[in-house]
């Protein structure tokens, strides 16, 4: 009689153990499936965000030169497309804190490419206009980084020689970079 009870007890224990294992396996399966789905979703989200950032930078770089903070307007003759006012941009670079998140990109820089100069000299209030790179906005590192997109622009300012004021325009590259997520 006692032996019979022992056998039934053992059978029940075995069944409970089996059930516990199945339960554990099912839970583990769902947790793993959930984690896989989450990773898949997040990677898609990150990729989508980067693609949108890239699209924004690409479209922005073509229009930035014509935005009011950069454009020449009528100051150097009639409306010029992709003409950047160097004086305005210099003022902007000194007050960039106000504009820190305005365009939603990481870095904005203008590099003069013609007339060609050997050394790349960053513009400051003391050396302007005898310089060839205006760093308008840089990321936390202070250096231009991120993924860049560029557009060719005309960089104009007023100059005076022999009492005559004239327009001085150079060819430059406008660089915009975005953060890779």
């Amino acid at each position, binding site marked *: 009689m006692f032996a019979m009870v022992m056998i039934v007890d053992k059978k029940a224990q075995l069944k409970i153990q089996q059930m516990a294992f199945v*339960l554990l396996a099912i839970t583990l399966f769902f947790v793993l499936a959930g984690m896989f789905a989450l990773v898949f979703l997040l990677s898609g989200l990150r990729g989508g965000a980067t693609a949108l950032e890239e*699209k924004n930078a690409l479209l922005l770089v073509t229009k930035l030169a014509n935005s009011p903070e950069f454009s020449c*307007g009528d100051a150097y003759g009639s409306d010029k497309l992709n003409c950047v006012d160097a004086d*305005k941009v210099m003022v902007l670079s000194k007050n960039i804190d106000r504009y820190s998140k305005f365009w939603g990109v990481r870095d904005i820089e203008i590099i003069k490419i013609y007339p060609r100069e050997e050394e790349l000299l960053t513009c400051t209030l003391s050396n302007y206009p005898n310089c060839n790179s205006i760093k308008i906005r840089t990321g936390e590192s202070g250096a231009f980084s991120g993924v860049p997109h560029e557009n060719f622009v005309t960089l104009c300012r*007023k100059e005076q020689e022999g009492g005559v004021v004239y327009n001085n325009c150079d060819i430059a590259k406008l660089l915009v970079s975005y953060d890779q997520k």
Partner: protein
Amino acid sequence: MVKLNSRGIEMSFTWIFAIIVGISVFIFAFILISKIIDTGSMQSDAKVAKEVGVLLNPLETGFEEGKTSSFSIPTKSRIINKCYTEGNFGRQVINVRQFSFGKWSTTDVDVGFLNKYIFSNGTTEGKKFYVFAKPFDFPFKISDLIYLTSSNDEYCFVSAPEDIENELYNLNQANFFTEDCREDEDKIQVCFGGSGCDVNVLYDEGSGSVRKEHEETVYFETDALMYAAIFSNSETYECQVKRLMQRVDSLSQIYMGKIGFSASRGCNSNLNNDLVALRSLANGLGSSSGLNQIKTLSDDISEINNYAICSLW
């Protein structure tokens, strides 16, 4: 094992346990799937909102006096236009809700832009949307204003001044009508100089007011703001006008800085005091009814700049 005997149904512990666990697993799976669907629809809404904002970038480029474009969203959608004035430039927020599985998605994800000014009703519903942009100068270029309308909303412009009518005609936007639409009740009637229409415009050489039913009267200066007042609700309009004045303030600061550079090269400008006054008026603007005062100063500044040897803009 389920056994039937004279006393009723007898179930073993294993079966009861299996049923409870099975139900729990199903509930857990159901919750997980519905959460994933919710996240997916929220992600889709946010993505569409960001895409709409990014796609509006090319509209803001040019010197063209007005240009139109359209975009479509695969499902019926609501574009909710939110505007905030906090910070240096305020904030333009786009929130998109899509109609799927018989209900509107409810996303809390707001996609914000500091450099955009979108004028539309609080909620614009449809699948196809038209956007039309126009530069706003006050006195220098401030920004391109974007007017967003749904293809579901058709506008009939009645007795519009000739230049406005020509501009609307040249835009060739499919939901704008200037002829033979007065009697059509399905169209939003925009009447110039009239009353009793859906939108009543008082227009006098670029300045005036716009009155809509159940909304406060708003005031405009320049044609760009007139369109803004027509296509947006009064709350959005007033908020965006304040944001534009914030941009006037920032740009005035840049031009004041430029005066210093120009002066060092023999290009003196006597606009400094006027720009200080412009900044002060722009910062103090309470509502669109105060725009006419700023416009007077803006016209004076524009005249001085136009006749200067070295114009600032």
